[in-house]
């Protein structure tokens, strides 16, 4: 993935104008395990949302496999998100009327995997994330840490090319944070899934192979 001169301005040409990102030029190789870091308001979540097509850049170009995805229509972008990108949000964001099992298999269902394959994958992920006992429960019946593990399982279930995780450990204790990072690391190493975090959690930063530091919407460090 390549970002060329990406700018993002909220409320342009108004007194409330905020320059969230300024001239971002970045390249992500397949299989990276990268964290976007920085203080609150530095623009890391905005950048992550733009990479994932959840938000659009004010100007600049974004390429995925040499195709300019920044020019995609909303419909095409939704298709890309469905097929190639897995999201892990800070607030879990599960679908409350679906059970844990249905939540994990939801994207696979949308991608028309057959039921047997979905069941097998759900069980495999539930076993890795130690949530086998929760499969028939609704999100409202399980703890925050358990919900985040379900969100991870949902994001990785269809084996997307890219996983984007926004502050995934913010609501987890150290034990659950460790478990989640191990899981994502294993996926990254075994299945060469590209993982990009937006986080300022020290533990996440320690685990990352690459760290991009943002300050006031500008990349100030890339190591």
């Amino acid at each position, binding site marked *: 993935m390549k970002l060329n001169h990406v700018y993002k301005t909220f409320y342009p040409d108004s007194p409330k104008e905020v320059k969230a990102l300024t001239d971002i030029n970045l390249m992500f190789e397949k299989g990276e395990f990268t964290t976007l870091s920085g203080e609150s308001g530095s623009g890391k*979540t905005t950048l992550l*949302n733009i990479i994932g097509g*959840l*938000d659009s850049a004010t100007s600049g170009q974004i390429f995925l496999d040499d195709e300019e995805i920044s020019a995609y229509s909303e*419909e095409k972008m*939704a*298709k*890309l*998100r*469905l*097929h190639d*990108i*897995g*999201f892990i*949000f800070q*607030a879990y*964001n*599960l*679908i*409350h*009327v*679906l059970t844990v099992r249905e939540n994990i298999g*939801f*994207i696979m*269902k*949308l991608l028309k995997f057959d039921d047997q394959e979905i069941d097998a994958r759900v069980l495999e992920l539930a076993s890795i994330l130690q949530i086998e006992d929760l499969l028939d429960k*609704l999100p409202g019946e399980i703890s925050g840490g358990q919900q985040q593990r379900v969100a991870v399982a*949902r*994001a990785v279930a269809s084996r997307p090319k890219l996983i984007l995780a926004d502050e995934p450990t913010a609501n987890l204790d150290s034990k659950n944070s460790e478990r989640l990072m191990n899981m994502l690391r294993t996926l990254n190493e075994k299945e060469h899934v590209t993982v990009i975090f937006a986080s300022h959690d020290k533990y996440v930063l320690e685990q990352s192979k690459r760290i991009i530091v943002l300050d006031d919407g500008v990349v100030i460090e890339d190591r």
Partner: protein
Amino acid sequence: MYKIAQHLAWLSLWRRKTRSLMVIMMIALSLSGLLGLQGLYDGMITHLINTTIRSDSGEISLYAKEYRLNKSLDHILNPVSHIEEKLLRVKGIKSYSIRLQQEGLIATAHKSLGATLKGISLESEQTFGQFDTFTTKGTYSFGEKNKGALIGSALAKKLNLEIGSRVIFTAQDVNNEINSISFRISGILKTGNPALDENSVFVSMEKMSQFLNLKDSATQIALRVEDTEQTEKIQKELRKSLENMEVLRWDELYPLLIQMRDIMEIFNLASYAIVFIVAALGIFGVMLVSVLERMREFSIMLAIGTPYKIVRDQIILEASLLGFIGFMAGAFLGWISLIYMSTAGIDLRSFEAGLEMYGYSAIMYADIHLYYFLQAFFAVFFATLLSVIWPLRILKKIKPIQVIQGKML
């Protein structure tokens, strides 16, 4: 994809039972009220028309030409036996009643009033319109030697008459001689037809013929038909065979009833529109809130790549299912209330005086028609669809991530 939307819609309804029940109850209650109201309004006017047909006009009435403009005995139907022969040859006539009437003065020892004396056959009127069911006091008979009379309830009240009271009726006979005849009140009738209740005294046809010095004569022959759909056809046939007579349908004789029915239809439509708008706003409000409160959930679905079409279909299906179940429950409740109101009726005797002034019965009975339910079905269907258009437009416009991050809504 549609299957997923179906599954999500069903789960959403089933796993949010309280919300679903609330919407269903709201639709059901407003719909049953709507159905009840419509049935009652229609029942009121149907009752009025029915009592008029039963007590007076039949579906068709025959008069001598000019009689209705100039109610003199110079314009009477005669000989009635010949007319009866012709009537027997017309197919589709169920029964008929021969009446002879004359306007005059009714007097008691204390008071006198203008009134109409009507000669009738109790048996014929019974077959014609179950006349005995109008009897509120006394008996449905003319007493011994036909010396009794039946009187309209409002007229009896005005003259302060009770069963057994004696009255004297004075009128001109066919020779323009003033004659008087005395009767004892044997029964009081309440037909619901103000013209009869306020103005009429019924006596036997034989007494009336003697009183007016007439034989084989009538002022009106009212007919009931076997199939009301054939009324116009029978009227045409009668006009051909009875050229020198006026052959008029009930709606030509009582144009006011048709006007009342039209007014009632407009009133019905207006009430229906008001209740529909209230119900539609209710459904709209609940559906809108139920979609808006779940905007985050739908945004999450869109953010992770769920096609908009699935979310849209889910919302429409959910609303349609709620609308359909609400309609079924409402139609059932409405049907029960209509059945009750059409058999037991609604007792409004405390407003009797006011209602009777307009010819309405103090006990109101509702009508039931299949089209009420069809109308209601389409009303709920459109209200439900309307209720999801706006939320869907909002959903189409928003950026899911803004909702997820709490920057919107």
